[in-house]
């Protein structure tokens, strides 16, 4: 006897964080985030264990997405994070929009109409303008990501002009060497990412409203700076960090196998 599937699970294995969303009758009944760590397969197994403990695994249809999507060997289907962020973003913001997803390893600009991705752009093999850049700089400043966002709120941005994360780190080190305030350096780091992301978005062309998904949604300061640069309000949503996993869960629900 095949048990009826009532839980639709979306798993987004990002380069830094792995997000899981569980849907039941189109409502989010559970969600959690785990660090991806160095082994995507192990992370996928941890997620499965948790899904089992919470009683979802036996009756679930699961879609995996994100950079480690192939690690989820129990997934019913694999879909790219671009499509999932488009779907998830549309569900959260409920309108046609240009979605900016600043991830741990890349940045994506996705145009969505009627819940469908109509065009997208991904930055090239480079950490500038991604969450990785902020992570590296937070380490250098000896604070957590949240710590860096808080510092930045109270800083006057210093210029960080290097295009490359490795060189930008040297620039930050020389700011530290000059005895600059940590707050100002942190603000400079956030401004640098906002500037890369906004130039990527402007090059691509923005249509409709702007919405931010991904880990950087947790920084109101980043959202403010990005809005200023793009001269347009940038919306976000408390659940925006889970947009990719939500999109995957919605895709699983749409499948109803």
């Amino acid at each position, binding site marked *: 006897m095949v048990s009826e599937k009532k839980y639709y699970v979306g798993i987004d294995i990002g380069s830094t964080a792995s997000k899981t969303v569980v849907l039941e009758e189109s409502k989010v009944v559970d969600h959690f985030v785990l660090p991806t760590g160095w082994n995507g397969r192990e992370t996928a197994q941890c997620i499965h264990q948790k899904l089992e403990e919470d009683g979802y695994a036996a009756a679930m249809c699961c879609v995996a997405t994100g*950079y480690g999507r192939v690690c989820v060997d129990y997934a019913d289907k694999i879909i*790219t994070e671009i499509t999932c962020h488009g779907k998830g973003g549309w569900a959260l913001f409920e309108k046609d929009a240009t979605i900016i997803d600043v991830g741990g390893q890349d940045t994506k600009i996705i145009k969505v109409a009627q819940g469908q991705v109509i*065009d*997208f752009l991904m930055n090239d093999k480079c950490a500038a303008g991604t969450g990785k850049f902020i992570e590296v700089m937070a380490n250098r400043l000896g604070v957590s990501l949240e710590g860096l966002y808080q510092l930045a709120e109270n800083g006057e941005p210093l210029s960080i002009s290097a295009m490359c994360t490795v060189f930008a780190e040297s620039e930050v080190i020389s700011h530290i060497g000059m005895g600059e305030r940590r707050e100002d350096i942190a603000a400079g780091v956030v401004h640098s990412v906002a500037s890369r992301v906004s130039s990527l978005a402007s090059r691509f062309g923005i249509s409709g409203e702007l919405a931010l998904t991904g880990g950087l949604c947790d920084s109101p300061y980043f959202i403010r700076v990005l809005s200023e640069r793009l001269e347009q309000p940038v919306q976000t949503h408390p659940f925006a960090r889970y947009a990719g996993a939500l999109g995957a869960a919605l895709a699983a629900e749409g499948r109803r196998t």
Partner: protein
Amino acid sequence: MELRKELPEIFEDFAEGRRNAFLNVKKIKDQDKPVIGIFCTYFPQELAVAMGAAVVSLCATSDETIPAAEADLPKNLCPLIKSSYGFGKTDKCPFFFFSDLVVGETTCDGKKKMYEYMADFKPVHIMELPNCPTEMGVEMYRKEIIRMKEKLEEVFGVTITEDDIRRGIQVKNAERAALKRLYSVMKADPAPITGTDLMNTLVATTFNFEREKIPAQMDALVEKIKKESKATEKRPRILITGCPMGGATMKVVEAVEENGAAVVAFENCSGAKSVEENVDESISDVYEALARKYINIGCSCMTPNDNRIKLLNSMIDEYNVDGVIDMELQACHTYAVEALRIKRFVNDEKKIPYMNLETDYSQSDVGQLKTRIAAFIEML
């Protein structure tokens, strides 16, 4: 001049496949047939056919010799130029090695400056290609074609008459028409073969030294495809445009086909770009007839490059294309700049999705390419 017939010193170090390639070209040389190496499709191959010479394309498609090339050339240069130069310099390419004359057309800036260094180890003749496909351009290129013919006569001690060229035109027209019949099989929906097989066949044909036999071979192949093709499911239909395809960049075609779509058309110069239009046999001046055909090749080194738009326009309709992928090689400035015009045309006028991919000859971006291509196909 003496034709080169001996094998290179490093021959014994090569793997079997490459040794065979060397021996195959050597066979041609042992029949006293001159070999002309070319880089771009602007060289009128009719001249070579007219004098009984073989033509080989020297545009290389592997990253094997890029480090050797970077000893002389800047790192931030297109991989095709670096790879081709590197193969020439290291004697690793049988076609370069056995070329008695290399013809370089002044297409992009990177290539035309690279030829200056290549001339240090190989006889190189430069054909000056006009920048604009205008009447003045035709007039200038006509003169360059005559200069090319005179160069061939001088180097190889032959006489090329206008009747010889007319015969060359007939041979090449028949060949192009046959190649077109082959790739036109992809108009069927679902496509009867994979884009990978089609491109590999088109590339292999450029190394077929018996050009007169190509039409019959292509027709036999088309028959075979029609007879043997099995009914497959319908898939989203992709057209690939941009820089030359083949070798390392086949990773793009493979990623498309692995992700459930079909590459049904190649607009690139290794595909339809140079094949679609024939030489007008009704023009009495053979040089003018050649100049008119070749100057119409829609490469991004031309400005304005309306011919690329024209060809894309008809191919998107004829092949019932669902999405266009524009493949650019890193540091290819003319194609990179032209990408915006192509995107606008494909999105706004043809109303279908467009994606631009920048890549090189390495395998380091395969993961990223797959994600982008998969997302593009999910979008269709």
